[in-house]
């Protein structure tokens, strides 16, 4: 690691710089998902035909994935706790479990999408499906990014380095989780 500039180590606002930045990242992401989901809701309210299409989504897989993501978030919290206690090895283990949750989520998603596409529900089949794949795809992209970052952070945490990052990736992971909590009812439950 190169030495940090003084700028990075100051905290005039009273919050560590890394955490502050992650909150801003989340704020900017909220507007992105907000715009997408807002557009979807406007469509949904104006077009009854959406409900017919939504009837073909697989609520069980959606529910399973919700459960998986929530559980993985729990591991992220435990990782944060371990990092606070200075136990880098345990923090890393928890992050590996969190990442595993993300992978299960993606696997279920891949299975689900394959089935749907085989049944003709492709991204251009209907505007509902366009939103479905775009929103869930954008979210899945965030899951992938989260897993990659998580593995990097965990590799360092194992050596007791940069332990503050365990909390930061956890924050981000909770956000990804919350986005899914919005997607699940909007895309799966509302039929």
């Amino acid at each position, binding site marked *: 690691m*190169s*030495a*940090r*500039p*003084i*700028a*990075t*180590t*100051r*905290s*005039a*606002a009273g*919050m*560590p*710089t*890394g*955490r*502050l*930045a992650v909150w*801003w*990242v989340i*704020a*900017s*992401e*909220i*507007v*992105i*998902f*907000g*715009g*997408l989901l*807002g*557009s979807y809701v*406007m*469509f949904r309210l104006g*077009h009854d*035909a959406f409900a017919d299409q939504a009837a073909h989504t697989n609520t069980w897989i959606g529910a399973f994935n919700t459960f998986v993501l929530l559980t993985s978030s729990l591991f992220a919290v435990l990782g944060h706790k371990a990092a606070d206690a200075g136990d880098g090895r345990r923090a890393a283990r928890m992050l590996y479990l969190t990442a595993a949750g993300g992978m299960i989520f993606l696997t279920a998603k891949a299975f689900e999408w394959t089935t749907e596409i085989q049944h003709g529900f492709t*991204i*251009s089949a*209907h*505007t509902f499906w*366009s*939103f479905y794949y*775009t929103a869930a795809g*954008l979210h899945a992209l965030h899951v992938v990014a989260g897993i990659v970052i998580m593995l990097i952070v965990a590799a360092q945490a194992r050596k007791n*380095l*940069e*332990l*503050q990052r365990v*909390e930061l990736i956890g924050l981000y992971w909770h956000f990804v989780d919350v986005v899914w909590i919005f997607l699940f009812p909007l895309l799966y439950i509302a039929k």
Partner: protein
Amino acid sequence: MAESIPVAPSPARAHDHEHPAEPGFIRKYLLSTDHKVIGLQYMFTGMAMALLGGFLAYVFRMQLAFPGIDVPLFGVVSPNEYNSLITNHGAIMIFWVAMPVLIAAFGNYLIPLMIGADDMAFPRLNRLSYQLFLVSALVLLASFFVEGGAFGGAWTMYPPLSASSEFNQTPLGTTLFICAVALEFVAFLMGGINFVTTTMNSRAPGMRMYDIPMVVWMIVLASILFMASVGPLVAGAVMLLFDHTLGTAFFDPQRGGDPILWQHLFWFFGHPEVYVVLLPAVGIVAEIITVFARKKLFAYKTVLYTAFGTGVLSFTVWAHHQFIAGIDPRMANVFTITTLLISVPIAEMMFVYIATLYGGSIQLATPMLWALAFIAEFLIGGVTGIFLGASGSDIYLHDTYFVLAHFHYTFFPIAIIGSFAAISYWYPKMFGRMLNETLGKIHFWGTVIPFNTIFIPLFVLGAAGEHRRIWDFAQFPELASEPLRNLDKVATVSLVIMLAFQAVFLFNFFWSLRRGQKAGKNPWHANTLEWTTESPPPHGNWKQMPTVYRGPYEYSVPGRDADFWPQNEPA
């Protein structure tokens, strides 16, 4: 602080041991994480893009004034080429000139220096944001050379024109255009997070909220405004890209989509965006007029809260761009009212600046000329906005040259006059030498006078009913009357003159790098922290990091010998 890693920076130079040997050219200029180098990279990239944008304007203005002419350096302009030219001119000037220069270049260069930090909070993220920005510019440039040519569906990218290559005839050009814009957004999101975090956390000891120089505030507010408004358009860009490449129908009414949705997503960003570029320019002007009037900024807090208010209000006016898009007339009323409301804070800022000038000992150095020109010219832009905000008159004026003249009277003062103000003011700090004053003044008048003779005729043309985005008015006999055609010629000739005068600036810029008078630390006798270190500042900015004791605008304080009082000078 408990959670950050104990690097324990000694105030002396935490950096020194990091760079044992003098780094090579690539390490020093291309891969540097130094905020000053990155700022200059943004500035030079922006200047290069400005030359390109200016060239495009020259080509299509020639076609407008002299239809069918073989334009020198380009050739005959076909209708499709004309559309690509105006589209890319607009997009380049906003996304690849105004934003990189006003926000990214000066934000990067000035924020750490003005708040007394040695760098940005996240230097490597900063470098990444520039690199991404550069890629976005290259993607845009590439779109000129692909089959079918560059996108020509206007910078606003309205579907269905933008959503299907059946209509726009530029299958690859459109895809590249959308990707370039989206990449640029991501680059500025990353940059903005860095600016905001740095300003919140990395201020020098003693610098409280109201001690932050106005330009830093404005760049930070602009970054937040950008962040809050661009999200839906990022989503919209993905949707548009899918419509264009994957055959989805988000915006295709024939298949259940809604083209008006795009207009909402675009202008929900588009209107706040005009304040995103306005605010930094307003901040730059605040720094300059206080220094060259030797006066305290009139009503610092009012300016600040006005800017906050403008930011909030700017989210409520977007549909004034859609008065004739078939929106509900009752909604049009609401948006008329909000639009008229937003001119109040803007007018107030203008008055505050005039009050700052009042009774000052004004020195008309080049930076000051630019700053005063900003106030005078922007006023015209703001006032003409009111005609457009009233839905009744807008139904007539919409998409005419009146609108075009309106927003050039806002954007030109912001992006061009504001940038020249800032460059002429901070050049001594950036390069350690002064620009030549005589050349500076020649360039100033050679830019500002033609600017007015370009766009005043266009107001008249617009009021006479001439529509924008028309390749050759000879095809519309009722618009092709001799007096109107002559006004078009006046505008084009003025543009050529104005572009020619930019050579004076370029010469002055490069000549002064070597031959200019040595600037010293503080040639303008200014208060803010960047003037307390060497020109140009060393890596890490200060040998001894500064502490702040007062606000940035303590000029001509009674009872002091010097008429300025640097922020870092103990009482």
